């Protein structure tokens, strides 16, 4: 076993050897090494987070036909560091009547809910934090902590706008958790396991090809969970000023902001893991774990780019429209898709590779088509009810 094949184990063994060489207890040395590993991962993620600020600003600039930050450093690369220095030296305010402990705990929990997600991300075949056999559910559990942090921030700020933002976010998250959890069951059905690594290993064909509708619904639910446009109702700059984080300043606001960016990138990564084969890319992942990490990061970046693309090209929708969209369309559709997928999986179990893929793909297309047809006829009736039949008829005649 050499370093280039299994860097984590080799490095851990080497460090443990050093620590025990100093006369340290073996168990204690192991705990210390694990702690150092976690510390290293979090540090890398935070550094990555700094550059995500730059990436986000550059990409949004391109979408809006601007150049973006380009003054500080080459291509404006040093700009996020300037932002951070600004955030750190800003006055740290706490509003009157705020619940101090809860108020200060909320940004920490928000960041934590994102960072713990990385415990289950398989970076390479041999590199993953925890080989959790309920990895898929862990994703939802971490989202629950994120929801909690937002409602804590909204309540403790002693501000009406923050409170409304918190309420909205909870309504949205509780609603969109259902299609998300349902869609997480689809890779679970295909792989026969809730373990992230097993899901990746069983993707000889990307699950996106077998279940494109599932991947799409997962992306929509993920964007809602992130609280990004078109579902950024908790922030709603034009109506709630800044929503739940209105009273936060300095680095506390920075924690929410950095948490949101890293969350978006993380969900890009999970989209890649669940539906696009994670670190696998035509056997390249077997060459070196570092190459596998590179593949995963590129795929996660592409997912993140899609999320940004949606954010900067869609307008925000109203809260009632959004909840209606979830409860009346997305949730029934995801249940139907889950039933269809489970049924097709049982029917096609014995079929050979291509027939299976084709059957699954067609089942998805048919489900999507039926759902859209139903939505179309219902919305047509709704339009007629609202605008009156006559008016519509006149327009058609002229």
């Amino acid at each position: 076993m050499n370093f280039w094949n299994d860097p984590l184990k080799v490095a851990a063994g080497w460090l443990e050897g050093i620590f025990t060489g100093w006369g340290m207890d073996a168990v204690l040395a192991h705990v210390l090494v694990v702690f150092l590993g976690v510390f290293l991962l979090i540090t890398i993620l935070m550094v990555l987070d700094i550059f995500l600020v730059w990436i986000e600003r550059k990409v949004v600039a391109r979408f809006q036909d601007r150049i973006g930050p380009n003054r500080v450093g080459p291509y404006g690369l040093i700009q996020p560091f300037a932002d951070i220095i600004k955030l750190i030296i800003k006055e740290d305010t706490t509003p009157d009547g705020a619940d101090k402990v809860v108020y200060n705990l909320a940004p920490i929990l928000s960041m934590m809910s994102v960072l713990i997600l990385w415990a289950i991300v398989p970076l390479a075949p041999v590199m993953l934090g925890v080989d959790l056999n309920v990895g898929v559910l862990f994703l939802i559990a971490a989202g629950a902590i994120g929801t909690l942090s937002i409602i804590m921030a909204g309540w403790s700020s002693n501000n009406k706008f923050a409170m409304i933002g918190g309420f909205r976010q909870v309504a949205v998250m509780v609603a969109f958790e259902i299609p998300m959890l349902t869609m997480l069951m689809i890779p679970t059905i295909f792989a026969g396991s809730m373990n992230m690594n097993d899901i990746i290993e069983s993707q000889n064909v990307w699950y996106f090809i077998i279940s494109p509708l599932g991947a799409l619904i997962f992306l929509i639910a993920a964007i809602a969970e992130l609280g990004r446009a078109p579902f950024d109702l908790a922030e709603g700059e034009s109506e709630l000023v800044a929503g739940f984080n209105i009273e936060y300043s300095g680095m506390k606001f920075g924690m929410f902001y950095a948490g949101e960016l890293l969350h978006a990138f993380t969900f890009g990564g999970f989209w890649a893991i669940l539906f696009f084969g994670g670190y696998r890319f035509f056997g390249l992942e077997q060459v070196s774990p570092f190459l596998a990490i590179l593949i995963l990061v590129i795929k996660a970046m592409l997912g993140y780019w899609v999320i940004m693309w949606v954010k900067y090209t869609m307008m925000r929708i109203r809260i009632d429209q959004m909840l209606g969209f979830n409860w009346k369309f997305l949730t029934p559709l995801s249940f139907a898709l889950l039933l269809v997928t489970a049924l097709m999986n049982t029917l096609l179990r014995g079929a050979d590779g291509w027939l299976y893929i084709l059957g699954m793909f067609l089942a998805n297309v048919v489900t999507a088509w039926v759902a859209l047809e139903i939505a179309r006829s219902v919305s047509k009736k709704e339009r007629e009810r609202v605008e009156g039949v006559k008016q519509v008829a006149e327009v058609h005649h002229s």
Partner: protein
Amino acid sequence: MTGEQIIFLIVALFTLGSALMVVTTRNLIHAALWLVATLFGVAVIYALLNAGFMAVVQVVVYIGAIAILFIFAVMLTRKDLRDNTPQTNKNWWAGALVAALTFVGLVFTLQSWSGFSKTASAVPLGFDAISQLGEQLTSPTAYVLPFEVASVLLLAALVGAVYVAFNKK
């Protein structure tokens, strides 16, 4: 004392401490947040019991849904933000006595049981609790009936909650 025991003691003290805060805090939002802490402690207890699935479901169902519903309900049913009225009954000491007697009685009854201080056997190699659980939950020879009854109960609760809370204009 092994590391596992130390972890258990820390988690148990944390759980019981926050549970005490749940029932004694004056501010109800704080009580709900302390409930979240208690539920976390219980999730760690499940993890110590090698029931990873239960731990994650605890976080998803209890913290993600139930605790947040509680916070919602507290916010919706308060007249003013600072509640200065006493939060406990006048004869709270009787309640404390009953609770203490229940605890003592439970422990007294349990410690006369032969299996009280038995230790766990090691988890069999390759034992997969989740697939076992899934198969038994859907197997007609095991627990499919309670499972279905639970889902009917959830449906009834869904309909009932909507009906009760619906604001008739």
